[in-house]
């Protein structure tokens, strides 16, 4: 008798560990495949993508350590698709609509269900989300200051890119016609498809080896194991309500608010006091806010634990609709992923710092400093590049914050200066740590960066960043980090502050100074420092 027909029993603790390894290996391999095949520096060099597996109910089963802001929301995507669409074996869906399983428009998601035998419902889902360098809209890079979603680029509801294994070329052409860099998009999408296919093949192999009954039992057991670990964490929280408030820069400096409270065996995370959505691209949809919470829990849980939907099971989220953190369609959301998400992490960490005193680090730079530069070459073809800049990390009880690195919701690599200057008509004129930008304290906050770039041809420069008005708060008496600053250096020698999107002539420069991290602990008075 073949093994797959044996009756599944609850896997023991050892088998759980083995299945955790088996499942976690798949998104890792998918990431390797995607990276090997992708075209754009954004995916290849900066690794701005994520791979995940979901289960029968759409819950997250496994994910690789890629970009956190993509990851925490894979289950929302899968659930939406499984409810909204009829799937057949060999189908693959393409989407970016933030209200239909997406995050912000440049993140294009491919999802494929995995069917087993003659089952009518998919046993697994495979998901790859990647940030594409352009998806249309008013500014190159699709990360500009739009008032609503339609100004930000092409909105793609879930459509089938593959039907029963056949590529729907008209769908692909439709998408490509709406971006400034169709060749690159095509290459990236093909690479993304190859990665999804690899995941589907590997899951089929797993099913063949172990049978669905055993796998289903393992997935369920891993999920309750993760939930158990979250509950263990919750028991360590100080009793009572823990609140935190932070302001976001931009129109009206909207206020973010959270309250943590243990209710029964669950943690209630209540964002009710958060301001309403705004007519600027800093709104977050539900997927982003949930991702942030997921990330913060992951930070606090033991590292060897499985990362799956169970981590969130003992958590109840109160997220009023129409607020900045759960905006209604068609709010502009480009910066929700990259800016507001960073602030939500800071907000949650500030609240957890009250519940777990001494264990949490001070706030980090709290922005991704999204810089997009683009223009037209003499032959009429468009060029665009997008980069995010690191900054200071918050200091902790253990030591100073790290300098100039990507914090929290992103972990992309920068583009090498030599690669940038070889590919685009720009010249980097400064790139170093920003002296004295970390907050003071017993332990200093990490330093921000300075990056200055001269345009060799006319170009449109767009900056999407926050923490420009107030710096990263310190903790336990530590000082505030320096806020960031964006400066235009005109040919006339005049330096003006840059906000949003501007046109630069050849010879003009932009300088981005990224925020420092918050300090930790009261600084030791100067005279007491040295014996």
């Amino acid at each position, binding site marked *: 008798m073949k093994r797959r027909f044996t009756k599944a029993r609850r896997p023991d603790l050892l088998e759980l560990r083995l299945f955790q390894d088996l499942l976690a290996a798949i998104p890792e391999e998918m990431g390797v495949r995607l990276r090997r095949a992708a075209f754009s520096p954004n995916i290849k060099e900066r690794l701005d993508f994520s791979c995940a597996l979901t289960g029968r109910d759409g819950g997250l089963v496994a994910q690789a350590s890629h970009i956190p802001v993509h990851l925490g929301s894979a289950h929302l995507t899968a659930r939406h698709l499984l409810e909204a669409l009829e799937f057949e074996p060999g189908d693959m869906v393409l989407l970016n609509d933030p209200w239909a399983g997406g995050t912000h428009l440049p993140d294009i998601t491919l999802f494929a269900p995995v069917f087993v035998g003659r089952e009518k419902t998919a046993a697994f889902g495979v998901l790859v989300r990647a940030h594409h360098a352009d998806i249309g809209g008013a500014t190159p890079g699709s990360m500009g200051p739009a008032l609503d979603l339609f100004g930000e680029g092409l909105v793609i509801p879930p459509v089938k890119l593959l039907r029963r294994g056949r590529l729907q070329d008209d769908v692909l052409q439709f998408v490509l016609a709406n971006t400034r860099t169709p060749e690159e998009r095509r290459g990236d999408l*093909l690479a993304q498809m190859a990665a999804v296919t690899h995941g589907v093949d590997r899951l089929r192999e797993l099913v063949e080896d172990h049978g669905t009954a055993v796998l289903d039992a393992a997935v369920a057991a891993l999920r309750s194991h993760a939930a158990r670990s979250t509950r263990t964490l919750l028991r360590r929280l100080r009793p009572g309500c823990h609140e935190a408030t932070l302001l976001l820069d931009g129109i009206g400096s909207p206020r973010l608010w959270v309250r943590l409270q243990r209710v029964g065996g669950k943690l209630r995370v209540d964002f009710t006091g958060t301001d309403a959505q705004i007519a600027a691209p800093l709104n977050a949809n539900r997927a982003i806010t949930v991702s942030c919470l997921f990330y913060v829990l992951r930070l606090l849980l033991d590292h*060897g634990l499985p990362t799956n939907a169970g981590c969130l099971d003992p958590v109840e989220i109160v997220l009023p609709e129409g607020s900045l953190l759960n905006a209604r369609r068609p709010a502009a959301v480009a910066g929700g992923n990259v800016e507001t998400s960073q602030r939500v992490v800071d907000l949650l960490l500030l609240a957890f710092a009250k519940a777990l005193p001494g264990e949490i680090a001070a706030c980090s730079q709290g922005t991704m400093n999204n810089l997009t530069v683009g223009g037209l070459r003499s032959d009429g073809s468009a060029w665009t590049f997008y980069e995010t800049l690191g900054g200071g990390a918050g200091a902790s009880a253990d030591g100073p914050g790290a300098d100039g*690195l990507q914090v929290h919701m992103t972990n992309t690599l920068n583009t*090498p200066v030599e690669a940038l200057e070889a590919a685009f008509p720009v010249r980097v004129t400064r790139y170093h740590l920003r002296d004295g930008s970390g907050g003071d304290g017993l332990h200093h906050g990490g330093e921000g960066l300075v990056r200055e770039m001269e345009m060799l041809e006319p170009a449109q420069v767009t900056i999407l960043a926050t923490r420009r008005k107030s710096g990263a708060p310190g903790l336990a008496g530590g000082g505030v980090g320096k806020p960031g600053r964006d400066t235009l250096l005109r040919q006339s020698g005049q330096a003006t502050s840059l906000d949003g999107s501007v046109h630069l002539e050849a010879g003009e420069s932009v300088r981005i100074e990224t925020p420092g991290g918050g300090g930790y602990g009261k600084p030791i008075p100067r005279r007491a420092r040295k014996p």
Partner: protein
Amino acid sequence: MLRVAVDTGGTFTDAVCSDGRVSKVPSCPADPSNALTAAIAAFKLKGAFEVIHGTTVGTNALLTGSLPPTGLITNEGFEHLLLIGRQARPELYALAPCKAWLPLRREHCVGVAGRLDAAGHVLQAFDAAACRRAGRKLVDAGAQAIAVVLLHSWRNPAHEQAVLRALADLGVPLTGSSDLQREFREVERGTAALLNAALRPVLEPYLLALQERLAKSVRLRIMTSAGGTVAPEVAAQQPVRLLLSGPAGGVVAVAALAREHRLGEVLSLDMGGTSADVAYCAGELPRQSEMRIAGLSVRTPTLAIHTVGAGGGSIASIDAGGLLKVGPASAGADPGPACFGNGGPFTVTDAHLLLGTLAPEFFPEGATDLDRGAAESALRPLAKKLRMSPRDCARGVLRLADSGMVRALRFIGAEQGRDPRGATLLPFGGAGGLHGSSLARALRMKRMLLPSAAGAMSARGLLLAPLSCTRSRTLLAPLRPQDSARNKVVRELRAEALAELLQAGAARNRVNAALSFELRYRGQSFEIEVPDNANLERAFHRLHLRRAGFADPTRDVECVGVRVRLECPVPFARCAALPAARRLLARPVGRTLATLGGTGTPIYDRELFLRGQRIEGPALLCERTSSALLQAGDRGLVQADGSVLVVVGGPR
């Protein structure tokens, strides 16, 4: 001329002589040259001979953070280039993230005036006097070596050369980034230069001392990460090329065995006491131009070797979530596994001992009295916490160790765009053979080759490694069938490499050349290395299809770089063939004791094997340096050279 290979490992120093003799002495971390000379002395060689050495002196200094403080001179405005790195944090989920360690302090980062554009043209002139002052200041501030990393120096090294000249009389070791690699991407090239500068004060004295301790008539060669050897002078100047000196030997030996047995694609698994190194060879050595080590990306020619923290000494423990965990922590040589009787923790080796898959009478010297009682008492609390029987728990430890390695093997398979199912597994190292059979099953592999003297494979690889030199340069130009500029670069690289080989004593008429190109579709930022070929473009499309899953012949192809590798092969010493067997079924010499239940495993002594003999699993094949396990359903056939070819069968 006789040749001796010496591989310095963490616990033992192995030596192999080209006449077939093998010696093994305990390593001496305080002065590795002691163990090296002792291992050679065992052969009692007289007159002229050659010593090929695989060293981890530099690697250990990097991994333990004990490289000397080093200065960095770079462009003004880019002082912290290497401290910033690529901005990413090594660990995704960390409350207080930190960057990978570098032997570089912030006060040792200096910028100098002078700038080139992307085409290598001078934008701003260079100031030699300022540079000299900066260098002096660095040395006064405690820098013991200096690296020079200027933007676009791969395109035009003139400024870097000028800086190096200005610093020449400072009396500290210097390294210019374009001297090591004329390839683009400043952080990876720069990190290589910085590590090289920092390694020189460590490696130079060591290699000098070695040469002094060996007689004048002895010629010394050092193994590089790329699977070739270099003269000690080159190694002392470019120690960054030695970072994977140890593991590279094993992969070279595997590739040679694969050729000799016509195995096609092989997965190499070198499992020792603390970690396992895996690599994928498809006919050729898996070469790549960048390595990841200690959290850093370093641009230097290397073999593609992936390391996982799974070895015989890997510790079994329970993680915060209450699940069993094996490794990456290792019991090392002290206290060692629980069965060594020094109060050590329960490890993979202990699990083998109790399950009867280890024969203590064949265990490496120095550890003959294995203490089963101590292993059992170390196991008991683990099993109790997991609510499992001790037997299930011990088996679980082995399965978990396997699952970590399976993940690593799959990962490198995916990285190379290859499917392990069609490959042959080649396990070696002290513990590799014990896990080969179960790994092959998990990866659905059908064949496995168990080499003889599996504990000394790395040393054997050193004997087989050719004297070699790799030179590369970034071009960033459209790929054309004929390209005179490209040909000119190829000629230059070939001349440079040849000069290095001749200097090291190579005979000109025995030098082989291999030429390859790094190609990509225009707009991509990742290259595929394509061996020289009449139709480069077609070969690239084909390779891209295999590795990336698609190809697009309508797209322009770009030639990112060119790589020239010159090699002077060494005489290949074939070992004496075993006599043919008359009895076709090998006979066991005993049976292991399985204290946790079960009947134990039949033990076979590999010294007694004859060509053509068969072994049916379950079987434990033992030799002095290693043991290998065949599971039920496996069938082994003894080869002429003493290795055993196994058809992996039976239930998974």
